[in-house]
């Protein structure tokens, strides 16, 4: 049972397919500039730092911290009717300051979530085509960095 269901899923698109292919293979891959090494998410054609066209899909550790979060308590959107409350987190990955992505924390009570909480990616298959990256709490102790 996925954490949230019935939501619009990513549609296939040339700029983003590597990311989703990675997820399908249980790998978190982020676009990284081949020249200056800057990670960028979401993917885009050019490196905003050095304007290089060269980029490589690079597997990252999947470790990060909760940069911010919210608990959606009121189903403003009909798509999440009967699914509230749910958490929505913005994760900052350890690879780079400001490298952030949107996800959810699973196996975690909403009250337990805090800003700065260490987390690690897990993958949840939603459909034969789409696997979503979600996150689980972890601890700083286990060789976090």
């Amino acid at each position, binding site marked *: 049972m996925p954490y949230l269901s019935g939501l619009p899923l990513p549609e296939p*698109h*040339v700029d983003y397919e590597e990311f989703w292919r990675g997820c399908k293979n249980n790998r978190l891959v982020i676009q990284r500039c081949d020249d200056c090494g800057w990670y960028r998410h979401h993917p*885009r*054609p*050019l*490196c905003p*730092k050095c*304007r290089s066209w060269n980029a490589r899909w690079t597997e990252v550790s999947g470790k990060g911290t909760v940069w911010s979060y919210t608990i959606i308590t009121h189903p403003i959107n009909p798509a999440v009717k009967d699914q509230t409350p749910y958490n929505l987190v913005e994760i900052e990955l350890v690879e780079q300051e400001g490298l952030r992505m949107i996800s959810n924390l699973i196996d975690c009570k909403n009250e337990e979530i805090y800003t700065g909480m260490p987390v690690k990616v897990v993958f949840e298959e939603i459909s034969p085509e789409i696997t979503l990256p979600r996150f689980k709490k972890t601890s700083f102790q286990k060789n976090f960095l």
Partner: protein
Amino acid sequence: MDSIKDKTAIVGVGWTRYGSIKKPLPESQYTLACQAIMAAIEDAGLAPKDVDGVMRFNFDSNDPVRLAHSLGINLKFFGKSMYGGGGGCACVAQAAAAVYAGMADYVVAFRAISESQEVALGHFASQFAQLGGIPGSMGWIMPFGLMSPAQGAAITASTHFSRYGTTSQHMGNIAVAQRKHANQNPNAFFYDHPMTMEDYMNSPMIAEPLRLFDCCQESDGACAVIVTSEERARDLKQPPVYIMAAAQGGLWYPNSMNLLDKIADLEKDESWHLAQALYEMAGIGPRDVEVAEIYDHFTIHVLCTLESFGFCKKGEGGPFTEGGRLEWPDGELPLNPSGGNLSEAYIHGMNHVVDGVRQLRGTAPAQVKDADIVLCTSGNAVPTSGVILRR
């Protein structure tokens, strides 16, 4: 009235290679936009951070956030034109206005298009199913099966045919001339595909009297131009191409019947209104125009636009196309020397502006000798826009 005449210039142009839905490019619309814009920046001898404004087409999903993200730039002016192909030159016009008003220094006007990736088949059908019917003013036309610009243009053509005696052959003259031009342009999609009048006549009927080759292509690609003030333009890498006039034109329609070809008045259509505004601002007339970059979604509208801009009288557009008058290199008014939307690529008319600039720099693939003044127009039959360029 004070105006922007000669106050701004195009200092950079960029374009990508072109594909079509049958021979798609692998790049996304986003990538194509960045390619064309970066090429224009380089052409101008600028750095990305110099760009502080963007104007895009309303159907273009490359909003300023995308561009700021990818190009790493800060923008202080941005906007989008309206009414699809009618808004191409409006992008250039608004860019010029923003520069002239001191709102930005270097404004990019661009169009990126990926019809192979972005136009989902059955897109309309699924939305109608979701909504339970045809919404808004489209309810006046779509239930009757009028749902594409080509069909609307066909209705206009039937009126033009009946009123003025225009023929398929006349429309064919336009298509054939432009194909000849594309055969000069290695980047044109139909570069190595010649076309005769017979080929044209044998192309399948889409919506009578419009044939396949009366219609623009469905393309992948992007074009971009950079506009700045005439003072700044003088110090840059390329010879400046001045914007003599820029304007919007058209009719105030009773409703936003976007897919209905709205020419109820063949005498004074959108392009007629545009022509008045452009010629007045530039202080020139049709005789001064040496290259005609006329928006060509459909041949019939090229014909109407030529009439409305006074190259011939109303109703005489048909015979005006005869005798190779529109053909490079010897015709008296070379039409869309790059091949245009019909035969170069359908970059929504931004390719016309790019070729116009290249003509004035003397670097066009089908170079019109000593071209000094170029007219570029956007789509007729919708609220439209245009620019007059000079070197």
